[in-house]
């Protein structure tokens, strides 16, 4: 449903599906257009533990970010990030601790964990954060790229060169090197990117990305409304086996007011120069 944000227009939809083989859905998702917060978590662990882990991640993030009084509890915020990004990092660390604590306190949840991939929209930027292998794609001017980093053994091996690998990389692709809730703190990958009108973001679980190519995701997201794109992508993954749970969120960014504002501001300056009687508005920063 399209919702006017403070300065922008964002249209989003999300869908999670159990797939065709699994008995339970261990994926969880969150969409909050008001907050500009979108989360996919893919849980792991036996019995119901994975389901619990992903749910704790999503609920904890929603609670922290949705609470205006929630402030970064980071003792040493990273100055290279914006305050909003630091706030998100802190909320992810908090969610990680909640999963870790729960796995420690309940024997049947021992060893559970989850991935997390978050898109946090700001007025002029996109903050993307991830732990694990749930991808975040950005489609900018018809070009798709992954703005998350897959924390898998295969990706780490590929990053250090393929020397010394005797097995196909995909056999290591489902082995994560980082996850939420397996330690008391977690290394989060985070990036901040300028946002533009027409940008589309897609967050998925590996149940989607293992079955549907980037090009197919890009095409569906560009040609279909978000809700239709989600249905189409999930159905594609299921038609190709659906061995894993499948989750997808599609976010389309509409008008960004600041670009229009700049033109209006420029015109006002001209008017101000020509007719100096106009009171000059002082910019406060």
């Amino acid at each position, binding site marked *: 449903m399209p919702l006017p944000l403070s300065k922008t227009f964002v249209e989003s939809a999300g869908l999670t599906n159990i797939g065709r083989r699994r008995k339970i859905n261990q994926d969880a998702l969150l969409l909050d257009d008001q907050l500009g917060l979108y989360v996919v978590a893919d849980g792991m662990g036996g019995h119901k533990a994975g389901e619990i882990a992903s749910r704790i991640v999503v609920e904890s993030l929603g609670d922290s970010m949705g609470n205006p009084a929630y402030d970064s509890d980071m003792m040493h915020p990273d100055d290279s990030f914006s305050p909003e990004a630091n706030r998100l990092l802190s909320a992810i660390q908090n969610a990680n601790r909640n999963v870790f604590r729960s796995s420690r306190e309940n024997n049947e949840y021992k060893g559970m964990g989850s991935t997390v991939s978050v898109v946090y929209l700001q007025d002029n930027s996109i903050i993307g954060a991830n732990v*694990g292998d749930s991808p975040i794609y950005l489609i900018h001017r018809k070009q798709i790229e992954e703005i998350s980093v897959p924390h898998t053994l295969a990706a780490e091996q590929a990053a250090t060169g393929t020397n*010394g690998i*005797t097995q196909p990389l995909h056999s290591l692709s489902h082995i994560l090197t980082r996850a939420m809730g397996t330690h008391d703190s977690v290394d989060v990958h985070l990036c901040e990117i300028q946002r533009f009108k027409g940008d589309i973001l897609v967050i998925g679980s590996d149940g989607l990305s293992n079955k549907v190519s980037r090009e197919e995701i890009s095409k569906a997201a560009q040609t279909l409304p978000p809700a239709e794109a989600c249905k189409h992508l999930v159905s594609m993954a299921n038609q190709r086996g659906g061995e894993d749970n499948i989750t997808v969120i599609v976010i389309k960014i509409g008008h960004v007011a600041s670009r229009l504002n700049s033109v209006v501001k420029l015109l006002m300056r001209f008017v101000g120069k020509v007719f100096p009687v106009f009171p000059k508005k002082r910019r406060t920063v």
Partner: protein
Amino acid sequence: MPILTLKFQDKSLGEYDLEPRKPLSIGRMDDNDIVIDNLAVSGHHAKIDMAGTDYILMDLQSKNKCFVNEEMVTSHKLRHGDVITIGKHQLTFAYKDDEEKPKKSGEDLYQTMVIDTSQHREMMKKSKQPTADADQPPAATLSLLSGGQGEIAISKKLFKIGKNPKSDYQIDGFWMGQTAITISQRPDGYYLSYVEGMSKPKVNGEIIKTTVRLKEFDTIELSRVKMQLVFKTPKKK
């Protein structure tokens, strides 16, 4: 539980049980689970982790490397009968006769699992080896060629240049946008985006109206300021 049998020149030196969820370390130092006192073996040479139902052998950046069935490996999913060679010693990985071996295909292939590589990463950092973390591009600066002097460190993930005093680097000018351009660090490098203002940036002489990926030594012009992107490589000892 599978068993590792340590051999030297076909002579068995001991058997070690692999316990679920307990990493097993192999090396020359006494704090390893399997100690091989031989100079060809590194202090902490390799480790075996359990991921789901699989056992994964990882080389810990050892000097003389690990071999499985005579092929060098950095990480390897162990299979029944695999022979690991460390220095001149051999370790045979085998499941017990009455034990169920992990399935080779089917649903397990899609089961996500996590392996603890923090120890591996720490050791790589300590040994100053290139880390496997490809999270971030190298640190970079903008070296001013004209319109200013010195270097500007790209200190923010989203570095803003414009006439707004809150910009990370301020360039004044009537036609300059409040935030004229941004430079963002993404997993695969630095990207320049034109944001607003009549002054459009040029990269290597070409006007940019959208987003471009920057390469090292690209020149960026914005109004009267000309700068060059330079990567900072960590100093080698």
